[in-house]
């Protein structure tokens, strides 16, 4: 299947006074992929997302969603977003929240009922749909936040730190939902500062810092390109030997020839290592 670019940012720059939040950034997101945007707080992820969804107009550069300008209403309607800050009315029930958001997207009647039923079922909140959101746990609110993003059946789904403050059970539920959306062919842009989430979910990852895109590739590609060599840790002759090596097996054979090996461990490079190598600091700094 030929690749189709759904989101294209070309040399996008956004400044707030003296601060350049996004600095000449370009990237493309293809239909059906999960694109991870990684970066520490203040890296410019949220500003980039706001430019992508048309909430902010870039000072320079271009943003195109399905070929259109996201500041136009019809183009914006192709996107669904689950913001990091829960955007829900706590005094209303889940059903009332979804009904309201659905009306804003032009849904009504049977179509609205059908979509509401589907998203509630999708995020596992069908049995709590008539309860006020204020009675929900943090994880349930996150799931409803995701449901609201999916209600109008958008082409592109933006998930901004969707697992912040979520218990492990809800986190796994959200992961399952995201993977199911991918299987359905949806395009997902996923921002996080949890490397393991990006490794588990994302097809491609962009690493941002200081408003710039430092690297962009598949997870394996990034690790291979930027992660450095695997780390071999060997316990032999009462000592622990640690080394970076491109050929761990050859190194093990060499050590075994001189002394018996008690035990060894091989640490493959991770995205965390990639980030450290690229920025000189860890993602949570």
């Amino acid at each position: 299947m030929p690749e189709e670019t759904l989101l294209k940012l070309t040399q996008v720059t956004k400044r707030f006074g003296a601060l350049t939040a996004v600095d000449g950034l370009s990237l493309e997101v293809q239909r059906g992929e999960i694109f991870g945007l990684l970066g520490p707080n203040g890296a410019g992820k949220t500003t980039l997302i706001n430019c992508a969804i048309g909430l902010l107009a870039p000072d320079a550069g271009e943003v195109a969603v399905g070929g259109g300008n996201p500041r136009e209403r019809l183009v914006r309607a192709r996107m669904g977003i689950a913001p990091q800050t829960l955007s829900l009315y706590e005094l209303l029930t889940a059903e009332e929240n979804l009904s309201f958001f659905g009306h804003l997207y032009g849904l009504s009647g049977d179509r609205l009922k059908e979509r509401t039923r589907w998203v509630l079922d999708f995020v596992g909140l069908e049995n709590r749909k008539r309860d006020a959101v204020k009675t929900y746990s943090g994880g349930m609110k996150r799931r409803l936040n995701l449901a609201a993003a999916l209600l109008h059946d958008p082409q592109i789904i933006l998930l901004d730190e969707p697992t912040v403050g979520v218990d492990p059970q809800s986190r796994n539920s959200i992961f399952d939902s995201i993977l199911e959306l991918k299987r359905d062919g949806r395009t997902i842009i996923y921002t996080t500062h949890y490397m393991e989430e990006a490794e588990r979910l994302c097809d491609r990852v962009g690493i941002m810092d200081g408003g710039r895109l430092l690297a962009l590739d598949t997870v394996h590609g990034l690790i291979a390109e930027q992660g450095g060599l695997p780390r071999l840790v060997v316990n032999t002759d009462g000592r622990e030997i640690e080394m970076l090596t491109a050929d761990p097996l050859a190194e093990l054979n060499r050590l075994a020839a001189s002394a018996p090996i008690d035990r060894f461990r091989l640490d493959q490079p991770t995205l965390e290592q990639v980030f450290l190598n690229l920025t000189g600091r860890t993602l949570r700094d």
Partner: protein
Amino acid sequence: MPAILAIAIKDLRMLIRVKSGLFFALGWPLVIAIAFGAIFSGSSDGPRRMAVALADDDQSAGSKAFAAQIVASTSFWVQVCKRSEAIDLVHKGRLAAALILPSGFGEASGQLFHGRPPQVEVWIDPSHQAEAAMIQGVLFQMTMEQLQKKMSDSGAMRVGLHKSLEDLKSSDLPPDQRASLTRFLGNMDRAMAEMPALSSAAGGSPSASWQPLKIEQHDVAIRQEGPRNPFEITFPQGLLWGVLGCTMAFAIGFVSERTQGTLFRLQMAPIGRIQLVAGKALACAVACLVLETLLLAIGRLGFHVVPNNWGLMALAGVSTAAAFVGIMMLIAGLAKTEQAAGGVGWASMMPLAMFGGAMVPLAFMPHWMAQIGVVSPVRWGILAFEGALWRGFSFEEMLLPCGILLAIGAICFFIGTRTLRLN
């Protein structure tokens, strides 16, 4: 459903679920309208009675009959007690006056045309001259009624005449006066002796139909010179308090959308700024109008609050709602947080309410206060409601308060939407 309507319905639903907001929008206005109206009105059923104490020191048949007449009077609400207690009640200000029938009242009231007149002691604060005059008038009226009653009963009248004739024999009056009075009473006794025949022939006592003066009272309602009852003052005040409550609830709610992140999702939706603002405005306007309708219905059904002109009342309601929708938008536009909206909003609303007549009725407001109140939309709102309710405003007269309200609304709405930060 159009987005504007969806936003309005959502906001109204939220208003109903915030109990504090609902109280200030509906509960407090009802307290103002009903409780204060009731306090000012006292008993509105029938004529007002003066509360008096009554002590009968004489305890004779004559004094008891007069006391019974006082108790039965529609002019007084009477507490019967002993002399000292009656005076004490007046001292303490609990009753307006004390009426005391002293010893000898009964004997004096039995004497006709001679001797000491029966005496009633009236104990009253000297500053209450109007009440004192009223009491005198009522007591004279009762005495005349007793005399009329006696004269209508020839038997009883003749017993009194005979006793007076006996008393005259031992009286110390000058001889010529005594002779003259004896002749007069004797003639009267003879006339009374013939009375039963006349009475039966006429089918009733002719003297019973005689009165020294008959006063016929006709009730004439004063037209358009004031409220018909205190509720017509307190309900417009309550209406404005309700509108203020709605205004603040929606202003804070709008700011909450921004601080709690829901505005972000609204902006993401394929709706424009105009639709978003219009939805908010519609919700506030509908809430104000529903509240006004509800309060007026309660006033109409339970408290005799009846507009002179329903059309003008609708004009007042719409104009007031429009003004405060604009004010809501201004507060939402200027405030950055809910605390700022609540604090600054109420801090500015309270003086406007105070000088505008929501606390002290416009009709009773000192001149200087009324002058300051000219800048308050609350004043013009109350004036518009009162104009339609009891001031008897014509359409042309309504144009001033309603026009000012609409102008305030438009200016505030414009500034509010210009300063409103959606991000």
